[in-house]
């Protein structure tokens, strides 16, 4: 049960930021895939060796084994996939409810025969579908490009699992953003949580990667639940996936309840 006209309006409002983020992702993905060439691996490693080890660790560029999957897993899923769709998620989540309440246009939506729940459901569905399409694009393009450049080299089931992990991560992150958007009256507070939390998570993730003394920080960031190398090697990632799903379910449901119950200053 969603409102079709609102869904359409939301698509119209957000497709440009969607396309921009997709375009940037599509700019990097081919570059990284074509960089995988066993022949040039050494020169890449040499180049990385010139940079401080801490910087490389912070960017997650470590343990780039020697398969194509592990290479993409390191250079694309180690950092870029954590950053770019996050920007999309932050913008879209904030726009979904908080910005409508902040600007006051929510008053118009609620003066039509549509319940708050229906409006929240519509917006949540848009976030959920659009982030799935975004990660879906990356998956399909990643496989296609790999097959063109290096036929038969990519471990496709492993790549799919990696993307499933990224998708679950984003269900959880958009859940947090949606919850913040549903809970707060103004964009300022919605962004403080909806954007502040993911960014803080990312920074903690980068710091915790740097060395032993800061490793404990990994318990404070959601990105620990998405570890490309563990997923690729098949090490106990199931529990992480389940945790991400639980976070997503809890935050989306929390968002619905919060928006249904609270006072709106319209």
């Amino acid at each position: 049960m969603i409102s079709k006209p609102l869904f359409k309006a939301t698509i119209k409002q957000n497709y440009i930021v969607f396309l921009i983020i997709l375009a940037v992702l599509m700019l990097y993905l081919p570059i990284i895939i074509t960089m995988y060439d066993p022949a040039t691996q050494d020169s890449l490693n040499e180049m990385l060796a010139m940079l401080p080890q801490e910087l490389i660790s912070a960017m997650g560029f470590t343990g780039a084994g020697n398969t194509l999957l592990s290479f993409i897993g390191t250079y694309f899923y180690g950092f870029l996939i954590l950053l770019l769709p996050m920007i999309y998620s932050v913008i879209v989540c904030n726009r979904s409810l908080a910005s409508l309440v902040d600007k006051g246009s929510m008053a118009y939506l609620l003066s039509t025969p549509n319940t708050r729940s229906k409006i929240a459901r519509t917006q949540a569905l848009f976030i959920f579908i659009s982030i799935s399409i975004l990660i879906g694009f990356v998956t399909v393009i990643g496989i296609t490009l790999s097959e063109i450049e290096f036929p038969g080299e990519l471990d496709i089931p492993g790549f799919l699992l990696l993307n499933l992990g990224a998708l679950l991560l984003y269900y959880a992150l958009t859940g947090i953003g949606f919850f913040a958007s549903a809970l707060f009256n103004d964009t300022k507070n919605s962004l403080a949580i909806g954007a502040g939390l993911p960014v803080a998570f990312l920074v903690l993730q980068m710091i915790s990667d740097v060395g032993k003394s800061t490793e404990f920080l990994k318990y404070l960031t959601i990105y620990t639940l998405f570890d490309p190398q563990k997923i690729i090697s098949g090490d106990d990632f199931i529990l992480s996936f389940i945790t991400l799903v639980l976070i997503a379910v809890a935050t989306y449901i929390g968002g619905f309840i919060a928006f249904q119950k609270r006072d709106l200053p319209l």
Partner: protein
Amino acid sequence: MSVIEINGLTKDYGNHKGIFNLSFQINEGEIFGYLGPNGAGKTTTIRHLMGFLTPDSGDASILSMDCRTQSADIMKHLGYLPAEMAFFNGMNGMQFLNFMGEMRELKDTNYRDELIEKFQLDTKGKIRKMSKGMKQKLGIISAFMHNPKILILDEPTSGLDPLMQKLFSDLLLEEKEKGKTILMSSHSFEEIERTCDRVGIIRSGELVAIENMHDLKEKRRKTYVVTFDSPTSAKSYKENTHFDKMTVEGAVVRLSVLGNVSAFIQSLSNYRILDLSMESSTLEDIFMHYYNVPKITEKVDNQEGGSL
């Protein structure tokens, strides 16, 4: 039959802000004016009627449905004009009206087009670039276009020029003819005077009075400023007549008249009058004169061109 019912509605924001134990009913087919200075609680009351807020105590219902829990059902019969114009980014006027129509599953757009024609709204312009008056017209059309049984209008004429205000008053009277129930809030007595059957006056979150418009006019005290041909005649006028609050300043006499003005006009007939004008009373004056309530010290915003 009462269409809108408010019983003991209270929402306390602390610091004496909010609304306190409000109760009133609005009957089918009447235009109810909700009058009060800015910050008195008019919009807070309306937000409860729209189901945006949960009351601390008491309740509000429309067509016997609870405003908070059944608001989506109520909205099938209701048109709403918010006090603040906040439309959607990037839409033009027509896109907004189409969007609102779709959200309401409105099929028949004849009345909408009639209203666009009547208010001479250019619907092709981007809303972002519209003037305040244009936005107000757009809001009015959006509130009326689905021909709802009940209309809740929060300061509907702010931003409209006098010609459009007149057009709007006529529209309200037409809607009343159709049997609509209308609640309109205002801080301008003149605006309410033109159309309303009954007036509820709210001040600092409490309902001061509910009056029949006719009775209210009777009680209304008007201040006249009369300019005589000379200070001597002004003085003699003051000595020979007895009106309230008479002051003489050179040839100018200022006085106030309660209710019937014919005695006042007769008293002038023996004098040569150079000028006669009426001072419009502010809402505060009206409160003081009608209800003897102490003047509130908080700033009363006079943004509507001093029409208070």
